[in-house]
């Protein structure tokens, strides 16, 4: 959809400016007049929440970087200095450390929303794949950030994750020493991780712009999965979506604040308050909670290279979802069979996360192996096969009909329910 803007500059200056840089028109057509489906739920506010979280991480991060010292001998002390001496340093750090978790909570809800409503299907494949790219960049950023305080978990997390690359045949060891800048994780590693941790969020911001751009071509999906057909299916972005997004962000901020002010260390590990010691590994090392399902998959495979391949495949397989899912119906609300498989899949992912935090022995390993097999079967068997054997429920004729009920459409609508007529391509 190429929406020529309906923006009309009012003042002489606005006119002068618009003919030189038509940014106001772009904002107007993207965030003011842009038609959004009238039936969106709060699951559609997580995009705005994610933008807020990215901004929050960048602002708190830039301030932390003013007081943090990326040197193996001083990093741990400098974080303690932030916590004890810098004015409100404790707040900056707790916002940033918990902010990473909040970011991941929001992104997982956002991703599973897409899985449920089939938002990855045509015509939104590129939009969706850009989302997967953002997720991978987020994982890299969070991993490198966690290394910066240079505690025991930082050091051993960095060691274990960089060593994943040593599984690559022939060149693995060379790659790892290039990642480290030495023969083990050390000061050069910390320096480059800090540099990249600073850079990557801005690359994420770049991909977010492409993501939103790609979103504005087909427009948003919605709980019915059927496209906007007439102006009555849509409402303008402002004020409807704007105010809803702002409200959701505020509620999310309350949730965020609860962690920051009441249990700021709940999601961290006590061991990370012990300075890095290359001679002793903590008895029980676990990654941050948001990596646990993938970590469980890594450990489920009793072979080094196999485990690494399985772990990376578990994310990369997402990219192929638009083509693995053979069903033409987007929304799971109209897919009775798939709905059950969807919830089983959610349960398996949560279970994998739980197993990732358990020691890798006995029944835990067995359970992780079963879940890993199911995880891949969901993509490689369930998604392709269901499209052929499932009989979807009848779809409503329009978004309006799904909201108002069939009888009411065409009859009089309640006052105020009329949106400005929108033309949607």
């Amino acid at each position, binding site marked *: 959809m190429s929406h020529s803007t309906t923006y009309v500059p009012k003042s002489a200056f606005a006119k002068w400016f618009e003919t030189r840089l038509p940014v106001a028109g772009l904002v107007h057509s993207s965030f003011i007049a842009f038609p959004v489906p009238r039936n969106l739920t709060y699951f559609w506010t997580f995009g705005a929440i994610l933008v807020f979280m990215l901004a929050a991480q960048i602002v708190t991060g830039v301030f932390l970087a003013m007081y943090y010292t990326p040197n193996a001998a001083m990093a741990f002390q400098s974080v303690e200095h932030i916590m004890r001496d810098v004015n409100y340093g404790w707040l900056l750090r707790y916002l940033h450390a918990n902010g990473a978790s909040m970011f991941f909570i929001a992104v997982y809800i956002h991703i599973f929303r897409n899985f449920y409503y089939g938002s990855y299907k045509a015509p939104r494949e590129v939009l969706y794949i850009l989302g997967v790219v953002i997720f991978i960049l987020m994982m890299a950023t969070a991993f490198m950030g966690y290394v910066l305080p240079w505690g025991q978990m930082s050091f*051993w997390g960095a*060691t*274990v*994750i*960089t*060593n*994943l690359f*040593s599984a690559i045949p022939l060149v693995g060891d060379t790659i790892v*020493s*290039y*990642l*480290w*800048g*030495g*023969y*083990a994780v*050390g000061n*050069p590693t910390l320096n*480059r991780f800090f540099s990249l941790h600073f850079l990557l969020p801005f690359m994420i911001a770049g991909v977010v712009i492409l993501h939103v751009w790609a979103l504005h071509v087909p427009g948003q999906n919605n709980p019915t999965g059927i496209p906007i057909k007439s102006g009555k299916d849509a409402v303008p972005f402002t004020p409807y979506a704007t105010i809803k997004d702002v409200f959701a962000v505020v509620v999310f901020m309350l949730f965020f604040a609860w962690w920051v002010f009441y249990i700021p260390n709940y999601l961290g590990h006590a061991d990370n308050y012990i300075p890095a010691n*290359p*001679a*002793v*590994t*903590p*008895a*029980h*090392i676990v990654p941050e909670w948001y990596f646990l399902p993938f970590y469980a998959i890594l*450990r489920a*495979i*009793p*072979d*080094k*290279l196999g*485990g690494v391949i399985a772990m990376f495949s578990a994310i990369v397989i997402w990219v192929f979802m638009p083509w693995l899912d053979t069903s033409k119906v987007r929304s799971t609300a109209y897919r009775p069979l798939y709905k059950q498989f969807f919830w089983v899949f959610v349960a398996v992912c949560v279970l994998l996360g739980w197993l990732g935090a358990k*020691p*890798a*022995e006995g029944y835990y390993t067995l359970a992780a192996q079963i879940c890993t097999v199911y995880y891949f079967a969901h993509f490689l068997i369930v998604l392709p096969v269901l499209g052929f054997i499932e009989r979807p429920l009848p779809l409503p004729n329009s978004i309006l009909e799904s909201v108002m009920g069939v009888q009411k459409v065409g009859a009089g609508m309640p006052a105020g329910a009329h949106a400005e007529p929108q033309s949607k391509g």
Partner: protein
Amino acid sequence: MAHPTHAVEPTRRDFLFIATGAAAAVSGATLVWPFVQSLAPDAATVAAGAPVEVDLTPIAEGQIVKLFWRGKLIFVRNRTPAEIKAAEDVNVATLRDPQADAARVKAGHAQWLVVYGNCTHLGCVPLGHQGEYEGWFCPCHGSIFDTSGRVRGGPAPTNLPVPPYTFTSDTKIVIGQEATA
């Protein structure tokens, strides 16, 4: 589209386009080299890899001592006769990474095992005197090593490697230096 059917003769301009493009591609690719190379261990790190001398006298029988060479952890283990026997009595053919104990220690010094101290799975430090064979047990993902540092279970693919070292006397070794004779 209506293309002329005869092939157009390449012109001097075509040649210049291709030559310029090729030069740009080659120089672009060349520029990547110094950036990638800068990531490798730097000269100071490599220089810090000078050999280290270790005095074995204070290491009691059964004790494992940890030290660093080139920033990497190394275990020096003074093995008990029972541990040596356990390591030697293994049927090498049954091992994941088959290696005789004799190939992992210096002749006449079977008492001393010197190995790198990072698990060959993902680099954690295994705990000494633990696990089924009382060699080492890695707490991270459960790899098991015997009293020769050979992998006997878990995800680790290979034995704990033996670093280059040599005995300069009966109670002294130099790590980072192979015997010259």
